[in-house]
């Protein structure tokens, strides 16, 4: 009964059934399943599968967004219960599109996937001044994600790194970058800690940088 309900939830997320997922999660809770169980047993494995399918080019952005939306809907229902049972999010991530750049679809997708991966995400939006990233780190973020979509704005990424250094907090965080014009070589050049080509791999990168196992079952929870 329990396993079946978890499977239903898993399917719903993978297929992006945003209108059905709420009922499915509620049904699981009514059966007595815990929020933690639902997260670990259905939601996280589902998002891992979505990520795998995206990387294999079996699904594309619209499908990934639908799944991420289903995930968000579930998390909304479960969050109050996490707080009650003392379940902490994996880690705090701050995301933003750099100064001068208004693109956000990719960044938003990364945010959804990271949430789906159990991270707590603070999204600063677009055209973000470096100082705001520094504030977020001072507020506890351990990963900074920078996005830029133009070759003329990616040059604003080093300014964020310098601001973090100037504030004395660079050592505290991992900085990852993404966006069409950037790549691993650019990440190395500017001293970022990593680069991910898409939202799915951003989750794996974030976990790896925090020394976490990439397999869902081995997920340690940190504050």
């Amino acid at each position: 009964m329990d396993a079946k309900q978890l499977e239903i939830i898993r399917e719903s997320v993978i297929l992006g059934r945003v209108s059905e997922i709420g009922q499915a999660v509620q049904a699981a809770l009514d059966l007595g399943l815990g929020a933690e169980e639902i997260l670990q047993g259905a939601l996280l494995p589902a998002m891992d599968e979505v990520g795998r399918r995206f990387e294999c080019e079996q699904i594309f952005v619209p499908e990934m967004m639908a799944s991420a939306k289903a995930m968000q809907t579930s998390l909304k229902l479960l969050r109050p219960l996490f707080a009650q049972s003392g379940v902490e999010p994996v880690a705090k991530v701050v995301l933003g599109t750099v100064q001068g750049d208004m693109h956000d679809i990719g960044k938003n997708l990364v945010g959804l996937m990271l949430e789906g991966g159990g991270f707590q995400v603070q999204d600063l939006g677009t055209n973000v001044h470096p100082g705001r990233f520094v504030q977020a780190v001072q507020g506890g973020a351990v990963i900074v994600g920078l996005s830029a979509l133009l070759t003329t704005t990616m040059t604003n990424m080093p300014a964020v790194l310098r601001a973090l250094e100037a504030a004395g907090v660079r050592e505290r965080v991992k900085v990852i970058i993404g966006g069409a014009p950037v790549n691993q070589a650019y990440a190395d050049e500017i001293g970022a800690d990593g680069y991910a080509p898409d939202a799915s791999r951003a989750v794996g990168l974030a976990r790896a940088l925090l020394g976490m196992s990439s397999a869902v079952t081995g997920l340690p929870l940190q504050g």
Partner: protein
Amino acid sequence: MPSPRVTWQSIAGESKGAANRPHMGEMPKVRVDFEPLDRWAVVEPRITLLDAARAAGVGLVSLCGGVGSCESCEVQLVQGHVSPPSAAERSTFSESDLAQGWRLACQATPMSDLRLWAPPSSLEHSQRLQLESDLPLAGSPSLIRGQKTGLGLAVDLGTSKLAGYLVDLESGETLATAGAMNPQARFGEDVISRIAHVGRQPNGARELREAATLALEDILDELCTAAGAERSQIVEAVIVGNTAMHHLLLGLPVSQLGAAPFMPAAAQAMDLSPEQIGLRLEPGARVHLPPLLAGFVGSDHVAMLLATGLWKTKQTAAAIDIGTNTEITLAHGGRLLSCSCASGPALEGAHIRHGMRAGPGAIERVWIERGVVAVHTIAGAPAAGICGSGLVDAVAEMRAAGILDARGAADPRAPGLRSGKDGHGWEFVLVAATDDPGSREIVLTASDIRQLQLAKAAIRAGLQVLAQEAGVQEEMIEQVDVAGAFGSYLNIRSAVRLGMLPPLARGRFRQVGNAAGLGARQLLTGAEQRAAEEEIVRRMQYVELATHPEFAPAFVQAMQL
């Protein structure tokens, strides 16, 4: 016999349309005129319009051997009578299209002398190119007889290509046309990379400015030679281009164009001496640069609106200039709304496994029926790759054949589909390699389909946002002018099937070629046009898609096939 330019993977029959016609007896021959190419033929009324086109030296594209399946040979009846629509034509065209005279050339036969209009997308490449600069828009005002004497120079300074025209200012006649690739391309294919070049290299701005000036000088030489004219006869010039091209030519700052809010340094109309542009003309000659509309919508767009008449239309109508950047204007109730969409370089063949620019050997038409793929390449050369319009056709056909679903995922059992390199995704074979030397296998990959989905979604979503801002439903749009070289190559029907363009009747779409070039010429001789420039800028409402809340959801939705 099927045209030798088509690569067949099965046998096709000859033009079947006429074979089933009842015997006509001895009927007098008829004259069939083809516009806008100005060619004609006197033919037996028994033969199809497709055969009549061949007799007239008009190259209509036909992939299916004239059986009415591939829908490539569309023509519009302007004057005269033709046979009633066949079953194939009824399944191709809506009632309103048929009422407007749209026919398949392979199916219809003449019943009187005829005048037919062949849209650019039905024409073979070389004839299409010729039209690009010369296209008199059906029903558009021709160049006006001016008050001035002497010659005028009009230039459309495009990101990839320049188009130049030499005009007799008194008669309004175009004496010569010339085209050239933009030499700035070596500093960056697209506008953003050229702006980045200026930022990175201390001499970057000067290099780009000099490249532009050099190109103008070369075109000027070519035009004067072709017309047998002297530079000293040129008293007036109009140069149009997108905002970045305009700024690079004038040496204006461009770095702010590379970041939000993408503001032009100076957008007003300018009248300069040739020296200020670096052009060698008589010092008394005037160079007019029309105003710009926004950071990514330039004076070329203004010129296009003039030439198409969109600026003063009473209809609800749209004009779309498709490229790496697509600019759209929607006119409704006297309002003009514009936006710029980053459609990306996939439509120019970039980031596509076997993608290439339109040129000899580029697959530009694709037709799939019962598991067989037929392609048509530019100039009939052996297939070397696929260009943007070919990609649009291919994906539309793959979707129609059920090889792709609405999400763009492929049915793994489809014939011609195989596993991709490194086990990632899949590949679909368009052209199989043969033993002929120089023969290449051409495939489409899952990633190629995705790239096209992104490009076409940006364009459609841009139009949808404008429609929403204007308070109209897409169905209410009465006319869509598709401008630019790509627009002339594009198979409109495939673009509609893909959802790149809204699902309106075929007759509502016009392919207007280089309307910006025509507009630039009109600005030389027409006082009305000069006044209109200012009015356009005043009335224009620019919609910034990047910050519009409806764009992202519309974009994601529009990715569906």
